[in-house]
């Protein structure tokens, strides 16, 4: 029995060694890719910012098919004349805004950075704005004002699409993107325990509308075009904040 077990262990060791040899051979064989492939990989890689604290990828905000994305559609981006609701006139500057404000990038890309060039290749590959798309993606920043109560059932649906991909499941924060991202609504409510309900709602509204531009953090803001006031109010109602 013991001898058989030893033989089995030996066989496993040989297999492991051979598997390790194969994988190290594979590792030594570099996988080549085009600049477009490079840009595509960067799009889904938090390493688009070298910051250790970054949890976001470009896709976190710009992958519209998976959730309610705060970011604009990227097809046709290299041809667009303005970004960020008209406040930016350069694509690279607009990208660097994302990297700085949401991804904690310590320095901006320049046109000489290979990553920036690869991202340009990828964005160009996406093609022009689809013919049936609405013309320039608007980005209206909304001043935080209190909202009348909405529909809690609708709020649950909107929460799942707009908040859960980053904040995780309601109350528990299950599967949230990073531990520094607060569980909603509990951690925010606890932090502002002395606030009146209306003031507390304003905290959520200001954060949803201003994101990291309202008091720091790394959250991207929801423009009115992406998240209507009615849907935002429904989320707050789902949170039982009225």
């Amino acid at each position, binding site marked *: 029995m013991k001898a058989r077990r030893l033989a089995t262990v030996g066989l496993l060791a040989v297999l492991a060694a051979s598997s390790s040899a194969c994988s190290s051979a594979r*590792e*030594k064989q*570099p*996988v*080549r*890719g*085009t*600049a477009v*492939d*490079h840009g595509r*990989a960067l799009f889904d890689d938090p390493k688009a910012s070298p910051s250790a604290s970054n949890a976001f990828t470009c896709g976190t905000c710009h992958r519209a098919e998976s959730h309610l994305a705060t970011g604009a559609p990227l097809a046709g981006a*290299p041809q667009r*004349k303005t*970004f*960020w*609701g*008209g*406040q*930016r*006139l*350069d*694509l*690279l*500057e*607009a990208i660097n*805004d994302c990297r700085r*404000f949401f991804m904690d990038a310590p*320095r*901006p890309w*320049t*046109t000489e950075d*290979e990553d*920036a*060039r*690869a991202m*340009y*290749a990828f964005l*160009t590959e996406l093609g022009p704005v689809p013919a049936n798309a609405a013309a320039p993606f608007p980005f209206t*920043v909304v001043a*935080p004002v209190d909202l009348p109560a909405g529909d809690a059932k609708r709020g649950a649906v909107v929460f799942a699409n707009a908040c859960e991909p980053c904040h995780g499941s309601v109350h528990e924060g299950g599967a949230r993107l990073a531990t520094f991202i607060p569980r909603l609504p509990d951690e925010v409510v606890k932090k502002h325990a002395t606030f009146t309900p209306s003031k507390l709602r304003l905290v959520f509204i*200001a954060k949803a509308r*201003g*994101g990291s*531009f*309202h*008091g720091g953090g790394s959250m991207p*803001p929801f423009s009115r075009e992406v998240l209507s006031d009615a849907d935002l109010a429904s989320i707050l109602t789902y949170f039982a904040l009225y």
Partner: protein
Amino acid sequence: MRVWDAYVGPAPYPNRRPKLTLPEGDFVLVPNSGADSVALTDLAKGALVASVPIGRDPVGIDGPHQIVADRARGVAYAVLSYPGSAENAGQHSHGASNVPGWVQVLALDDLRAVGELRVDPNPGEIAVSDDGQRLVITHFDLTAAAKADASIDARRSTIAVVDPKTIESFGTPEPDKLLVCVAPHGLALARPDGAKAFVACYGEDVVAVVDLVDIHSPVVRVPVASSVVRDPPAGPPRFGPYAVALSPSGARVVVSNREAKDVRFLDVASAKMESVVASVGGSPYFAAWSADGKKVYVPTRAQDALVVVDASTGAITGKRPFDAATCAQPLEVIVPADPSVLFVVCEGTAMSPGAVLTLDATTFETRARSTVGLSPGRSFLGRGR
């Protein structure tokens, strides 16, 4: 391990910004501190030519407070004075912010950012020397000024002194900072090399004369009136010097005292205040000298007006009151090469945009009015070529 091919193709990120064609005649670049943009106004036509977004923050208010330019280098310098929190977003900081300010270097051909420099919170004024070698920024820190139990030095704040050539596109090292006085705001530099800075010290009722060649020289603080107490305790200033302007000859500095509602004059050679005082009715802001140095044009608030002061006697020789529709909250007067006109930048209100007025220099009647953006700050006059 992944190996990526290098990008080969047309130059990435081509510059698609519209070119800014500067008018042949006089023009102004107006920073709109409530809209994070710069307006280019053709003064000959009295018309807005372009409005270009600027700033480091694409969503929040950057508060461009003033813009100056060095046309020889082809750049402008915009000072960004951030509000302290989102609660007061919409207004540039007026001294109470804790958010660092920035200077953006903008290429004059399209106003793209080509450099940036972090300064202290509440940058007030910025000036570039005529030879383009010195850039100076005041820090209008009213929070420090109000520290009741602090020493006078603890209530004073700094000016930043920068060699513009050292400003990088990213990561520019901290500039030299000189502790000057309590709440320094208005600023003028000696011509042509900016060897001295004249600083209006709102919280200390003095004009500071700062040697920028030997930055270790003691700052000379000249009280704006003989009744000014040296090293005053914290509290509202009696005179509130807020703005200064150097005469065309460089021999005199006119000082606008916002609280005393008068303008006074500093003799540069002796570094002493002259006896000439002009009570201008309202709170004076950024005045301008006539080309011959005989008159000073003073914008005032409450009452909103343009007041003309004889610079040798202090007598009021002209006045043009403004109604709110014409010019709410006059900010500064600009004297162009054309002696037949004057320009007044009107700040407007929080809800209505500002404007640049073209006035007849003799009758002060309005010849043109060009709307700019929200809360315009101090502007750069580009003279026609």
